[in-house]
């Protein structure tokens, strides 16, 4: 399985409020609220760290979840945000815009 890299789209506005990340698409004003787990992934989405490594080093220890299940949830979350254009996904590292 090739590594997957994720990066935040620059065409968004985001702010951490409490322990949830509020993300607004600057393209169509759609609003997303990320739960603490999704927020952790969002914050780690630097385009250079593979998703599997994010899950292993940041999600599993912090949320005490099994790596396989956590990776599955992370993939689903990433696909969802990517479909709205607020996360970028690639099998290559993603250069900053």
């Amino acid at each position, binding site marked *: 399985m090739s590594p997957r890299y994720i990066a935040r789209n620059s065409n968004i506005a985001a*702010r951490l*409020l*409490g322990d949830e990340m509020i993300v*607004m*698409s*600057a*393209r169509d*004003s759609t*609003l997303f*609220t990320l739960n603490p787990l999704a927020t952790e992934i969002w914050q780690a989405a630097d385009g250079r760290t593979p998703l599997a490594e994010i899950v292993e080093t940041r999600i599993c220890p912090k949320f005490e979840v099994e790596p396989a299940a956590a990776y599955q949830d992370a993939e689903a979350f990433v696909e969802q945000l990517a479909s709205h254009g607020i996360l970028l996904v690639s099998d290559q590292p993603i250069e900053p815009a």
Partner: protein
Amino acid sequence: MDLVVSIGGVPVRLRTCDQSYAQILQQRYAAFLQPSAPPEAFQLDIHLAPPLDGAADQDLQVSRDSGHWRARRGDFQLDWDPATRRGSTRHSANPYSIDSALRVLHTFLLARQGGFLLHAASAVRDGRAFLFSGLSGAGKTTIANLAPPDVTLLTDEISYVRPQAGAYWAFGTPFAGELARAGANVAAPVAALYLLAQGPQTRVEPVTPAQAARALLRNILFFAADAELVRLVFQSACEFLRQVPVFQLEFAPTPAVWEVIR
């Protein structure tokens, strides 16, 4: 003929050649007129025309081209050039279309000042402003109607919010809802935002920051799918939430609701 209408402390010079329409505007904005235009005043030229080919309940279309904004709805068209601080409106001789054009214009102006227009009633009590936010049917006019005599109503429909001297202030507006009555032209620092929900009893409940953000952003008047404006409005909303406490107010429609507003 020139009229200077100052809403939220932001003066806009309205120019029209039609004397009778100027009188309509004078009546409608009587509490918000100022005698002369300061140098920083914005300017809007009003061109009266036969009714446009659509209805007032059409969706507003907003676009930006080379820095110029154009907002068009069934009953009016607004063109605005931020660089020159001047623009024009085209609509028939009715007071409602210019009201709509002014709302759109102020959303543009406020976005760059860290403020916004909000679907909310607002009122001042003891020198502090309270906002009551919700979409149609949430109870904005109801709570405004129930206000006791010591409360000064700023609006029952569209609240004007912007930062001033390090705090968020609410200003009176002439933008009326079902009360059909302009608010008082006064301002006060915002003490709280209440998210309205009508129910069998009156109670104030806390909301999480994320819930507050979702509700606030849902109720901010926002017209343009423009990336820069989206960011500005989002940042303003987050900054507002950093400073102003937000609660859910479930209320039964009786005057007693005002006992919990403090």
